[in-house]
């Protein structure tokens, strides 16, 4: 059985959160999932949230080496276990975020907002171009048929989206796709593929997101962002 991992783009790079279960199995499935999406992870800075798991220093060290062979840097390990945190520190790994993560119960008068990791592409993607990024992807231009975007997070196209787009590519079902003209060849959010009939030109901004397991597209002004 595979243990689902959660991936999120954060300002320090990627935050990977593992679930419950036996650590050796979780560890293996983490490596398998990195392997399966090698292109996606390659070059990333990884922070691992291991929750309650108690992990030995030697084990953490070898995990760091194994993932670094895949071109990924293990930046830090976040853990609720004091032993794991201690071991991570011994290895010189960070055990907290550089900037505080936004928390609902944050200080009452803190008005600063921290953002997530995103890439801005200021050009039109033509047929044959592709972009793959663990965080959010923002395109200032069109995405033509034959172009592809693979994003761990949201995809925002300030232009016409007619190519193929996969948001929440690492399993984030809350990912969204926004475009001034939403007419993709294929649109996926997490594991769900949308089958949209070839539509007439729509000249209004739209947002696509998952609703009860289905991709739905809504006109921008009707879409109330609930975040």
């Amino acid at each position, binding site marked *: 059985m595979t243990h689902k991992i959660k991936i999120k783009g954060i300002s320090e790079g990627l935050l990977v959160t593992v679930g419950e279960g036996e650590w050796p199995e979780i560890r293996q499935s983490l490596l398998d999932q990195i392997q399966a999406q090698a292109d996606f992870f390659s070059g990333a800075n990884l922070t691992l949230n291991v929750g309650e798991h108690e992990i030995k220093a030697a084990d953490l060290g070898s995990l760091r080496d194994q993932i670094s062979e895949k071109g990924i840097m293990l930046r830090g390990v976040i853990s609720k276990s004091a032993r794991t945190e201690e071991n991570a520190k011994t290895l010189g790994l960070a055990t907290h975020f550089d900037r505080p993560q936004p928390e609902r119960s944050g200080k009452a008068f803190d008005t600063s907002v921290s953002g997530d990791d995103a890439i801005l592409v200021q050009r*039109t993607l*033509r*047929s*044959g171009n592709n972009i793959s990024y663990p965080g959010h992807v923002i395109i200032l231009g069109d995405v033509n048929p*034959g172009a592809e975007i693979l994003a761990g997070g949201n995809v925002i196209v300030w232009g016409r989206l007619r190519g193929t787009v996969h948001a929440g590519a690492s399993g984030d079902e809350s990912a969204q796709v926004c475009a001034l003209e939403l007419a993709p060849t294929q649109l996926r959010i997490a594991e769900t593929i949308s089958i949209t009939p070839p539509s007439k030109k729509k000249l209004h901004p739209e947002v696509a997101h998952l609703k009860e397991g289905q991709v739905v597209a809504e006109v921008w002004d009707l879409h109330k962002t609930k975040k």
Partner: protein
Amino acid sequence: MAGKVLTITSGKGGVGKTTITANLGVALASHNQKVVCIDGDIGLRNLDVVLGLENRIVYDIVDVVEGRCKLRQAMIRDKRIEGLFLIPAAQTRDKTAVSPSDMIRVCDELRPDFDWIIVDSPAGIERGFRNAIAPADHVLVVTNPEVSAVRDADRIIGIVEAEEKGPARLIINRIDPVMVERGDMISTEDIVELLAIELIGIIPEDSEVIISTNRGMPIALNGKSKAGQALQNIARRVTGETVPFLELSHQGGFIRQLGKIFSSGGSKNE
């Protein structure tokens, strides 16, 4: 003279590059320009056939590059049109016989003696295409009004941009006015909107093109043909003239559309 290199390319094959190369050569030469056409489609040469010069080939571009003859010796002079020359491709070799730097060298040697060096590119994005765009000062991308040809044109335009040979300009070939009127063809407007480059010519579907190709008499020499006129107009736009687009139908609706596209295309420095 400081000749300009004009490369005619496309993503998809069979869209009309060779026809356009031959006819722009003829049209520019008939406007007193000195022109040499280079067949960049090594292994599949046919520019010589379209120009009707096949029977006069002795040396080809591979002979030049490999030092078996002088550049002059490989140049075939067209006896019908003053100032038009052809450097043919080799029939028996593959595209790797010539490199991008060979093409740059050959073109640089031709520049002082010519106004225009027109390179006919093979289809695709392989070596032959790289050879053809390496020396280019201007790139014209040819497409047909078909989804697959437009998709491939988009890809090529992206590569031309990445190679810093852009902005390429667009020729839409084989527009059928009857089909456009019926709404059975992707419209010129949709193509230009998607590809987002300047439109430099629209050539109608014309059976005369095939007839003249078979005779080795480029259609630009035929003043009565709409396709021939369209090609003449492209040649004038290449030299920097502003020429209105041809009326391709009698309905009037189409011509207005074309006018709109042309004026919104913006003027680029020649």
